[in-house]
């Protein structure tokens, strides 16, 4: 759902639908070569670029990649490690050695317990999809205040805008600290008025994020708050 696609280029496909002949083109994400055809495997918009045919899915699960900034929820705690739900198919593992604290063996629970929310980075993802998280890094910490909300994966770029311009504008207007995780989770902290404003913005992203009119509606909300 990048803003670059316009008019006639847009083509919505469903799983199994033939996009075109497979000769001379490479199958990108969301597609599969079946016989002489490239078929879609997801519901989404066809994207043909540099001889690669892919489908930009309307809805898809988060697939972690190393280096992603994610917001995780602690799902279980062992003596020396935490398991965090990162909104993906597999839980992330945060070992004691990559936590920002000096943790005694068996005392992991005193730093972060089940249900606590953390800002972490994906350290590595191996071929078996084991995810190792790290909290060593600038700004990576346990998130104790504020609100956390989820948006669809493909709306993240909409919320950020080109070169993070929309996100910067929102931070300025709402006077909130905002973190957009690569896994579709958004954390907002500030005064209650600012949080309330961000809640309406996130609702707009969730409901209208895929519409062509999204940017105009967002501008309207921002202007309204500026003038208030």
């Amino acid at each position, binding site marked *: 759902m990048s803003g670059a696609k316009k008019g006639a280029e*847009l083509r*919505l496909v*469903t*799983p*199994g*639908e*033939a996009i075109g002949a497979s000769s001379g083109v490479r199958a990108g994400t*969301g597609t*599969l070569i*079946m016989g002489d055809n490239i*078929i879609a*495997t*997801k*519901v989404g918009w066809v994207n043909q670029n540099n001889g690669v045919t892919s489908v930009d*899915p*309307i*809805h*898809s*699960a988060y697939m972690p990649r190393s280096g992603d900034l994610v917001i995780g929820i602690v799902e279980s705690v062992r003596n020396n490690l935490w398991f965090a739900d990162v909104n*993906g*198919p*597999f*839980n992330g593992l945060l070992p004691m050695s990559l936590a920002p604290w000096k943790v005694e063996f068996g005392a992991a629970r005193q730093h972060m317990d089940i249900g606590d929310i953390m800002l972490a980075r994906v350290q590595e993802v191996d071929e*078996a*999809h084991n995810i190792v998280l790290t909290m060593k890094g600038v700004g990576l910490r346990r998130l104790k205040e504020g609100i956390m909300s989820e948006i669809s994966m493909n709306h993240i770029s909409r919320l950020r805008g080109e070169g993070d311009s929309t996100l910067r504008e929102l931070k300025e207007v709402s006077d909130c600290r905002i973190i957009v995780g690569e896994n579709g989770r958004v954390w907002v902290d500030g005064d209650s008025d600012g949080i309330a404003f961000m809640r309406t913005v996130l609702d707009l992203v969730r409901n209208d994020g*895929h*519409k*062509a*009119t999204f940017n105009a509606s967002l501008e309207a909300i921002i202007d309204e708050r500026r003038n208030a």
Partner: protein
Amino acid sequence: MGGYGDVKLLREDGLRLDGRKVDEMREVKVEAGILPAADGSAWVKHGLNVAVCAVYGPMEAHPRKIQRQDRAVIDVRYNMAPFSTSDRIRPGFNRRSREISKVTAEALESVVLVERYPRSKIRVEIEILAAEAGTRCVGITAAAVALADAGIPMRDLIVGVASGKIEDTVVLDLDKAEDNYGQADLPMGILPTTGEIAFLQMDGDLSVEEYNTCMEYNLKAAREIHELMVDALKRRYIEKNGGEA
């Protein structure tokens, strides 16, 4: 033939009791994305059958013993609501729902690209709100739409359809009377773009010719239902985008 010789299922004019022709399907309606809490969902009305399906995941598979190192497992729960039939059904799992859950999961595993998500689980919940014969087929159709809505990669949209035999005549899409008093029932899960069969059960006897006719009817019906499924998936976005797409 058949144990219910006194039940007339075909009228004098060759039509069926509800006025359908032998190769005519009941009316089908499909909606996608009806449940906000699920990752993907669908609602299918097929004749008087109503099925709602919710898909969650892919997620970490628990308990760990069900995990497969090379692929995702599909956990299907088919359930009939207590009020879905004229006799109240005792709530909870029973032998029939366990069987249908199993065969549905196997049918879906052959279309979903399960190898993309090793060690994870995709949860498919099929709830039959109203039943009038052929609920397993409606469940499969609903599950396919819900999986596509959840963004889970698939080779095709699988369609559940059934044909059968009443009074020595092959008919498409049995209703309740035809299912109860007919001679045979042949539900199938069909991949409409390739014509592959991912699921097939047969209840009763059919000759080779009768089977081939059933097959022909089922393929035709599957293509019709497939169009409705595609329309349900696309309609939401074309409409929401204000026609601009």
